[in-house]
Each structure stands twice: as structure tokens, then as C-alpha cells.
């Protein structure tokens, strides 16, 4: 080092405390930060387990609860651990239609999660393109878009979803549409806000100065820097979407009875609550709870890790 110094060229030694070399990409740093919290790590593991179950439900479920030919009304309301007359054991019991609850929960997770994730993703793509457009074009376009966003946000999600579903009818696709309709605005607002902040940063000026095209600046420079808040919103909104779907199912609008999501399982099971057939409602309830809680925990940690203000 001293040798270098003598040449008058200061050594480009790594900055404070960064000992490791190339390994320190933003992704790795992010991961290292993320796994610092044991709770969040645990939550992530559980969540991955849930996702695994959801994805592979058809292969790991004991029965196919959506296949009416195999579901028998004669088996309904059996308590956990009962045996069906074909000799199969219902570990978590059966629901009011005779579905094996364990399988129903697996499939329900699949439905709930895919509703949450699909609506989250679609809303994200839609909302962030709109938000980015607004931030990029500015002026009238921006004003117009943001007014629409305001209107949307000033209206409570549950009401909009209620009315929309009343209009659209039932089905997974319908509920996704309704959820997207109530969620896109959050993404639009988030992306626009951070895009506006990023756009004013000097690195964007530098890129302008380097005569890079607007498109390139927007997508290669601005957008990646808007992602962190977006990721947080995605997790939070996905959890919200799942919860909202459950609520809508509870209110009797949402998914078809034969393909119940967790919310619908709970709602159906609730009828049996007072007759102390607790398992029909409690088990899906616990599954829903774990799902939402883990997503929120993961989202929380993401927020902490990705929040530049809390970053050391």
C-alpha cells in the first residue's frame, strides 16, 4: 500500500469494513440482512413450506377434495382421526360436504395463495406501469392518473370488492379481477412516489448527461431503484388480498362452494362452530392465520431491510 501511495495514486482500498471482495452484491447484502432476524427466517421457512404445499397440493393431498365423485356426503362432519368406510383416515376430520379437511386445506391454500399472488402480481404489473407512466410523463397525464388513484384509494377496498363481485359473479377469475381493481392503485402510488424521488437523484441527471435514451433511463436506472418499496407493497398486499378474499367468502360472495378457499372453508365451518364441530372452522382458520402471519412477518423484515432510512 505504501508503495502505491508513493506514486501519488491512492490505493482504491475498499471502504470501511468491507473486507469481502466481489461477493458483496446488493442481493447478497440483502439476503444477509434478511436472515439476521431469526423470526423472519423462521417465517420464510414456514412460508416456503406453505407455498410448497400449495403448489404440490394435487400430489401430496390424500384425496382430491374438488372431485365430487370421491367426496361423499355420508362422510361429512367426521371428527379428526376418523376412518372413512373405505378405510382412509381423515386426520383433520371432514367438512360439511364430506371433504377430507386436510386435503381441503391443502387445496384451499392453493386457491387462497394463488388468488393472493395472482392478484398481487397482476395489480403490481398494472399499477406500477401506470405509476411509472405518471411519474415519467408528469404534467396532465400525471395529474389525471393520480386523481384516479386518489379516487380509488379514497374508497375502501372491501366496498369496492363487494360491489364488483356483486356485479361480476363468482369464480376465482372474478375475485382476482375484483382484488386487482382494489389494489392496483397502491402500486401505482408507490411506484410513482419512488420514481419521482429517484428521478430527481443525481445519477439520473448523470444518465441524461450521458445522452442515454429516456426509455433506458426509466427502465434501467429508475425502475430497479423503485423496486424495494414495491416488494414490500407486494407482500403486504398479497397478505391483504388473501384476508380480503376470506372475508368476501365469509360474506357469501367470492368463490364457488365446490372449490373452497381457506376463507370459504372457515365460513362454511362456522356454521358448525356452536355445535362444537370445531375442526371444520378452526383448522382452516389456523392455516389462514399462519399463511398471513408469515407473509406479514416476511414483509416486515423486507421493509426493515429495504428501507433506506433504517439501513446502516
Amino acid at each position: 500500500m505504501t508503495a502505491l501511495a508513493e506514486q501519488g495514486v491512492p490505493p482504491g482500498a475498499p471502504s470501511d469494513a468491507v473486507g469481502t471482495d466481489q461477493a458483496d452484491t446488493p442481493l447478497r447484502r440483502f439476503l444477509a440482512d434478511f436472515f439476521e432476524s431469526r423470526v423472519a427466517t423462521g417465517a420464510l421457512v414456514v412460508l416456503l413450506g406453505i407455498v410448497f404445499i400449495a403448489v404440490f397440493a394435487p400430489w401430496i393431498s390424500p384425496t382430491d377434495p374438488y372431485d365430487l365423485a370421491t367426496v361423499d356426503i355420508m362422510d361429512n362432519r367426521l371428527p379428526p382421526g376418523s376412518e372413512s368406510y373405505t378405510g382412509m383416515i381423515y386426520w383433520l376430520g371432514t367438512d360439511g360436504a364430506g371433504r377430507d379437511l386436510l386435503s381441503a386445506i391443502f387445496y384451499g391454500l392453493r386457491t387462497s395463495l394463488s388468488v393472493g399472488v395472482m392478484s398481487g402480481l397482476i395489480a403490481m404489473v398494472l399499477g406500477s406501469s401506470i405509476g411509472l407512466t405518471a411519474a415519467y410523463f408528469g404534467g396532465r397525464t400525471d395529474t389525471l392518473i393520480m386523481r384516479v388513484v386518489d379516487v380509488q384509494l379514497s374508497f375502501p377496498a372491501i366496498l369496492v370488492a363487494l360491489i364488483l363481485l356483486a356485479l361480476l359473479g363468482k369464480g376465482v377469475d372474478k375475485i382476482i379481477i375484483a382484488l386487482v381493481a382494489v389494489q392496483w392503485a397502491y402500486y401505482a402510488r408507490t411506484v410513482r412516489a419512488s420514481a419521482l424521488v429517484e428521478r430527481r437523484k443525481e445519477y439520473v441527471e448523470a444518465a441524461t448527461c450521458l445522452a442515454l435514451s429516456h426509455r433506458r433511463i426509466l427502465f434501467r436506472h429508475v425502475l430497479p431503484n423503485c423496486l424495494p418499496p414495491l416488494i414490500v407493497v407486494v407482500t403486504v398486499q398479497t397478505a391483504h388480498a388473501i384476508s380480503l378474499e376470506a372475508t368476501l367468502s365469509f360474506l357469501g360472495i367470492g368463490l364457488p362452494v365446490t372449490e373452497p378457499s381457506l376463507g370459504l372453508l372457515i365460513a362454511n365451518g362456522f356454521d358448525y362452530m356452536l355445535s362444537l364441530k370445531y375442526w371444520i372452522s378452526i383448522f382452516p382458520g389456523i392455516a389462514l392465520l399462519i399463511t398471513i402471519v408469515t407473509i406479514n412477518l416476511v414483509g416486515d423484515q423486507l421493509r426493515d431491510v429495504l428501507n433506506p432510512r433504517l439501513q446502516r
Partner: protein
Amino acid sequence: MSLPATQGAPNGALMELHGLSKRFVKTLDLAGKLASKLGSSIREETVYALDGVNMTVAKGEVVGLVGESGCGKSTLGRIVAGILEPTEGQMYYEGRHVATLEPAEAKAVALKVQMIFQDPFASLNPRMRVRDIVGEAPLVHGLVSSDEFEGYVDDVLGRCGLDASYKRRYPHQFSGGQRQRIGIARALAVRPDFIVCDEAVAALDVSIQAQILNLFIKLREELGLTYLFISHDLGVVEHISDRVYIMYLGRIVETAPTEDLFAAPNHPYTKALLREVPRLETRHSKFLPIEGEIPSPLEPPRGCHFHPRCPHATARCREEVPVLREIAPGRESACHLNDEA
């Protein structure tokens, strides 16, 4: 280093600004317009960031631009670097009127003028590797082919005192001084002639500042660069510039070769400014500050902008805007006092 100050000869000028003005207008939305129709006091707000600035920068020259915070230095720098459009006035690069250039030519000119920023943290995209930060533009603009790419980047980094082995890293892995070097490398990578340094060393520690200033001087010698060096630190400007422009509230109040200016400032503002610079050599000084602060550019004072703080202000200063006129060869000042003398 003692290049003689180039006189503002139009022919030799690399960059020339004529009557450049920039106003930031905060427009009213529909509701605002309605309200103001209905007699509300709400009005459009206009910030007079630049007001009729003339400036000439000769090839190879280092021009310093000094002024208090908010006086419009950065705005001028941004306009020169092509990031902002002026509201009024013309800009000539190598004698060509920039606003009227063909797109291809305009792009070439844009690349010839680069900028280095104050904040070593905000001016680098945190999600790009050093290699891409520096190499993106040359690659996109076809200044290098993709086979030459790596070598070219190494070369530029080396020139700026950075080890090429760090090019796969991200900005957060560097210290402030190193980041500033990356910023310089990014600018140099498109082979500019003219570099606008906007407070490029203000955020750095003294020892690092010295390193970067030395780098600027070295690069200028090696590449024949021209600098517009914006700073509020008179010491730094004095050290590096050949000629200095003093700016006050959007207007140039004085310009002179550095030595002349520091030896014998003409404008009352320049005088006050110079008097107040703390120096290592002065001990137990009696500070004699100028009264007041720089007024708001929203409502600049009439007449000479400096008159509310000027000890010599006369009635004329309150009404009439003094023009920048030559008071000695190579020296210009905008003060009514010069007429009376």
C-alpha cells in the same frame, strides 16, 4: 500551472452563453386557477434562478463559478451540461448554436459536455456495478465495441486512480473519495472536452479533497480538458481556476482572471465575500460580516440585487439594474459605482 486567462474572444471560445435565463414556474392546477379567478391570493410562483447570464469559456480553460447557496450555480451548470433547457438565451458550443443542432449532432455535443456531481452517494446508481456505470454510455453510443469494452473500462478507471479489479463492485462498497473517482471515470468514458464540476469536492474531507483536486489537475494536463468549476469554496476555486465568475442571485456580478480578482476585487459583493473567507494565515481575526442574507429568488430585489446588503448602495442601485461591463482588460463588473468613479 499558469495558463494565461483567455479573453472572451468568440472564435477561441469553446462554450459561450448569451443572455441565459432560467425561470422555474410553479403553475396552478385547475383548482388553483379557479381560486385565483375567484379572487384568492394564490398566484403562480416563479423562481428567477438565472437572469441574463453571459459567459465565455475558452478551450483548455478552467473557469470558476462562485456564489452563495441558491444563487443559481447548479442551474447554470445543468444548463451547460444539457440537463436543463434554458428559458431564454442561447448557448454556443464551438461556435454552433446548440438549440438548433440536428439530433445526431446535438447528441455528439451532449457527450462532449459532461458533469460531475456534488453528492458522491446520490450520483451513482446504487444498483449498477462500477463497470456498467462507467461503461454503459460508451457501449450504448458505440464509442467502444463489446470486445474492447473491458479493456476500455479498465483504462478509464486506471486513469482516475481506481484499481480495475474493483469494477465488479457496487458503489456502496466504496468510500466517498473513491465514488467521486467513479463519477469522474463515468464522465471521462465518453471522451468529453468540457466538464462541469458542480461542487465536486464539497462533500469530501480535506485530505480526500486534495486527492481529487490533484486528479482534476492531472487530467486536465493529460487530456486537455476544459472545466467549469462550480464551488462556494473560494479557496478551492482560487486554487484551480484561471478565471472566476462571481454570481449573485442569478446574475453574474463580476468576472476576472483569478489573480486579479483575488488581489483586487471590484464589486462590493466580491469584496465582502473575499474578506470573509477564513484562511489558515489569519489568526484571532475580527470577523466583520456583511449584513443580511441572500434574498429569496422568488422576489428578487429591484435594481441591483445586492443593494439591500451593500454598504455603498445609492438610489440608483435600487432602481436600475447594473450591467456587466469591462472595467479593465479581461475584467468585468456589474456595479454602478464603477460609473461614478
